[in-house]
């Protein structure tokens, strides 16, 4: 780990500092929004949103190379795809008469299929694995700016509307009677989930970002007595997993995304085991 600390100050290893910064900035919206996702039990919806992001990344990469849209950063494409997927999923959950699980599964795979199709048609070599499982070499200063702006936006929205979102998550019928737009708050939560997922996609990838969104709040919920406690604890855990996971991956030459996620999964397993042992 000492090598990792030295590397953080090495002027030639800017990518490592960028990756750490992105992880630390992203841990705030991830911990905050993840708390609501876990408390409301909509992790599977968050997973569908995350996977549909590949469609946006693929389309943006294709548009840059083929149509010359140099301004279209892949993360911007990811953001647009995530927001569209969140809106469609919210509509299906709240309004559609279709089988919700089947429609959400369809959105999940359609987004991925579109992404893979665009990537296959984009000139030059592009490895979809880098987007699916993360690659710290993909992290640029533009990602930091996007994460900073998106993270701030998420925090402001949560500060303003957290009481209404909590009430809708706990008892949407009562919230509606109190005049709260329950459906709009549910849509807002899914849009925030979409924004959050996008902030850390380049670091841990589409598949693994869901684990980082849900595992820290799940660990926090083992001890937390209030949603506020769960939220703060989730942010601290996410930041710790990113820092330690990055350190271990650098020191042991492991891929970063899987190292971070395995660390989080290990702590979750330990937390559950300890809770079971002490509750007997």
């Amino acid at each position, binding site marked *: 780990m000492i090598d990792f600390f030295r590397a953080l100050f090495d002027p030639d290893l800017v990518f490592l500092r960028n990756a750490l910064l992105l992880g630390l900035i992203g841990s705030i919206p991830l911990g905050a929004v993840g708390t609501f996702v876990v*408390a409301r*039990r909509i992790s599977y919806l968050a997973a569908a949103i995350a996977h549909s992001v590949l469609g946006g990344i693929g389309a943006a990469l294709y548009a840059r190379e083929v149509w010359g849209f140099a301004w279209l950063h892949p993360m911007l494409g990811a953001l647009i795809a995530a927001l569209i997927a969140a809106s469609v999923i919210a509509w299906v959950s709240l309004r559609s008469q279709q089988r919700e699980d089947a429609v959400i599964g369809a959105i999940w795979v359609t987004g991925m299929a579109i992404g893979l199709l665009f990537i296959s048609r984009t000139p030059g070599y592009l490895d979809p694995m880098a987007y699916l499982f993360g690659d710290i070499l993909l992290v640029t200063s533009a990602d930091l700016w996007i994460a900073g702006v998106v993270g701030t936006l998420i925090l402001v929205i949560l*500060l*303003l*509307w957290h*009481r*209404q979102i*909590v*009430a809708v*998550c*706990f*008892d949407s*019928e*009562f*919230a*509606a*009677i*109190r*005049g*709260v*737009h329950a459906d709009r708050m549910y849509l807002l939560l899914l849009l925030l989930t979409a924004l959050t997922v996008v902030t850390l996609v380049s670091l841990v990838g589409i598949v693994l970002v869901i684990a980082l969104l849900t595992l820290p709040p799940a660990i926090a*919920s083992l001890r*937390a*007595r*209030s*949603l506020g*406690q*769960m939220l703060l604890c989730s942010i601290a855990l996410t930041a710790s997993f990113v820092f330690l996971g990055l350190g271990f991956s650098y020191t042991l030459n492991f891929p970063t995304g899987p190292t971070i996620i395995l660390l989080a999964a290990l702590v979750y397993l330990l937390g559950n085991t300890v809770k079971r042992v002490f509750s007997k």
Partner: protein
Amino acid sequence: MSDSAHSNCECQAHAGEPVVCFEGVSFSYGHNLIIDDADFDIYQGESVCVIGPNGGGKSTLLKLMLGLLVPDRGEIRLFGEPAQLGRTRVGYVPQQIEFDPLFPVSALDVALMGRLSRGSFGFVSKSDRAMAQDALAKMGLADQAKAPFASLSGGQRQAVLIARALVAQTELLLLDEPTAHVDVAAEERLMYSLKKLGGELTVITVSHDLAFVSRSVPKVVCVNRCVHVHPTAKLTEARIREIYGHEVRMVQHDHEHLDSHGGHHHG
């Protein structure tokens, strides 16, 4: 509109705007007619019980009052406004709340949800917190404010939900079988706490317990697709037989206390 205008309401005339006004309201789930041409008024300060058999439409009637369901025909007004506007002055206590036992909220957090409105932004104010603590104290739960909601007993949870309804500075309290899932002791405590509230509060309670109805409220709304409103004293065996569709023997203990045998209904 006065009661006398309604063919299926046998109650006294009242001055002023009714708190609840149903005018020719019908509601169906698909082709299944649940409420047929309901016409009745409920006035400020009244305590009313809604009775009827399982599937007779009691909970549907409450959801119509709250604007959670839209009638096929007719009009519902709360405090002179359409139900969806007037409902913010209503405290609603459901029969049983479906909640996630792992959702980390305390009794105080749940009570504070009663202070919520469309314009609630940011953090909870000190006055809101004080009101929620006061409402919990009124329900005998002052020392349980910080306890996780999921760790409370059925009766205590029901009391927290009533506190949540009261903290909204409710003018009309709707209780959907508040004692259906609690034991007798908890039921007594709940009813005692509710009686202490009294005052100008209008209370509508859905109940399956005819003994409770006869000793607790002066007016009943009988629902079995059709809706009839009576003074409790006029709730005869024939009327109950008509509503429930089977024999119910009633024993008169005194002028105000009517007990039923074989008439314990779960709705």
